[in-house]
């Protein structure tokens, strides 16, 4: 008999599985679960974008594109990033279309990590950075961001995390799950530390359109001296409600992007053609649709934050992305206990903060990608639950 323990990669088997498996299983036994567990917009992709995809199919645009992606789309991305983030990238050799932001993160880490290199990863954060780092032989160095710092990376934390082996800093802002953002002054302070180093910043800005402050999202690439050491990653999933189209992109200095493109060329070939045609429309014609979705998210955000606080679960104002990250320590339960009991007793699904790193203990993530009516009902049940503990 084949011995699978001998054939599977040790690196892969050592990666720990996602911590929310058991909640899936509990939820699967219920048919009336009210979920706040989904990190994906509930809006349909704006019609003009879908139409552009359909038209491209009708015209028979069903072949590979160039490895980097359609030049027409790269030009639009160049304009878009310049308009939104005030950084210029040359569409011919500094932009790469990827299969979602995820592929760009994977390829970026592969392009820069030599086994043994350290990658600084702030947590709580999206679940992919640590395993991908491990897969490429890198060593994750975790910064635990704190509620009292609004879950930002502080200059002191960064200084302490840097060693001579540090190769990269992941900067996941606006942040899933905390909703934290890094403002210009915060980024300036980090830039001051990074400027004279050979540390690359992988700035995952997939939620850049979803910030709820007076100012606009600021990319670290726009800070003096940072463009040359930053790989800016973004995509169409969150801002344009295009999760299933699988389209993201990386922008950076030609020296780095050309290496990432090499990996992409061998592993992927090119990003989905239909999605690329659709995305051209997204960048040309959808400012209003994006603004409307953002306004709707903002109303829901206020609703959910207010509801948690009224239920006695302290919830800071999340300034970006589409998650609330309330503190549940007052209940005396751990994050996992809270989530398990909440789904068992009230059939409401939220994600334990610990799914996003150890530092998430004491918090849960609640997505507000749901209608206000749905959120109101979930909050009503959560309020009941907290009172009954």
């Amino acid at each position, binding site marked *: 008999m084949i011995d699978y323990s001998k054939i599977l990669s040790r690196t892969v088997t050592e990666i720990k599985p996602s911590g929310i498996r058991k*909640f899936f299983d509990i939820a699967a036994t219920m048919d009336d679960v009210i979920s706040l567990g*989904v990190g994906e917009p509930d809006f349909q992709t704006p019609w003009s974008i879908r139409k552009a995809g359909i038209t491209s199919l009708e015209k028979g645009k069903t072949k590979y594109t160039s490895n980097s992606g359609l030049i027409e789309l790269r030009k639009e991305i160049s304009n878009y990033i310049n308009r939104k983030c005030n950084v210029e990238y040359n569409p011919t050799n500094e932009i790469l279309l990827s299969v979602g932001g995820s592929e760009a993160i994977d390829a970026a880490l592969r392009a820069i990590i030599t086994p043994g290199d350290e990658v600084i990863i702030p947590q709580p954060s999206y679940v992919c950075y640590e395993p991908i780092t491990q897969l490429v032989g890198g060593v994750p160095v975790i910064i635990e961001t704190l509620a009292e710092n609004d879950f930002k990376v502080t200059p002191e934390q960064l200084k302490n995390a840097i060693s001579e082996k540090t190769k990269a800093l992941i900067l996941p802002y606006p942040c899933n799950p905390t909703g934290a953002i890094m403002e210009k002054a915060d980024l300036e302070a980090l830039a001051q530390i990074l400027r004279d180093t050979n540390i690359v910043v992988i700035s995952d800005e997939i939620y850049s359109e979803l910030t709820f402050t007076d100012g606009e999202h600021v990319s670290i690439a726009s800070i003096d001296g940072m463009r040359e050491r930053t790989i800016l990653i973004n995509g169409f999933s969150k801002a344009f409600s295009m999760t299933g189209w699988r389209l993201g992109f990386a922008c950076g200095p030609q020296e780095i992007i050309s290496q990432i493109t090499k990996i992409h060329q061998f592993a992927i070939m090119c990003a989905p053609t239909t999605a690329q045609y659709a995305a051209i429309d997204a960048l040309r014609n959808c400012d209003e649709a994006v603004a409307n979705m953002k306004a709707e998210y903002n109303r829901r955000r206020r609703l959910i934050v207010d509801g948690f606080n009224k239920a006695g679960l302290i919830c800071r104002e999340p300034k970006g992305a589409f998650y609330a990250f309330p503190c549940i320590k007052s209940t005396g339960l751990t994050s996992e206990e809270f989530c398990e009991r909440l789904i068992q007793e009230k059939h409401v*699904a939220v994600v334990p903060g610990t799914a996003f790193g150890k530092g998430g203990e004491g918090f849960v993530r609640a997505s507000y990608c749901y209608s206000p009516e749905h959120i109101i009902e979930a909050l009503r049940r959560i309020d009941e639950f907290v009172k009954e503990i």
Partner: protein
Amino acid sequence: MRNELLKLLATNARYTVEQLAVMLAETPEAVAAEIDTLQKEGVICGYKTVIDWEKVDDTSVSAIIELNVVPKADLGFEEVAEKVASYSEVEAVYLMSGGYDLNVVVKGKSLQQVSRFVARELATIDSVTSTATHFVMRRYKEMDVKLIETEKDDRGTFLL
């Protein structure tokens, strides 16, 4: 706040003042006062419920009637529109551009009753020169609300 408040109420008239205030980042007092003003100004004209009558075995029928009208000097279409609107059978009256003048939505207990109403009441109005009656066979969407269940949330319960 006015436009955003109206948009919210248009999607759900049952939001409480507190919920509206939270979503709009206003105080409940300010929202209540604004609703009051909107009602007094006649901007908010009423609150109704969207009902799928088919589900309660209601056999009543609706029709859309196209009326051609000779407008009166000075009064234009106003006089006849007001007269048509005054019937309790009439749910809506619109002045139209294009092939006909007034679009009238009529509700009745049966085809016969609606037909009789059109023949006896609408067609006989002096300035009405012709009518064309179209019966509604099925409702798919009413006041922005879909009456057929086509869209389910097919996202998973959990998705990181």
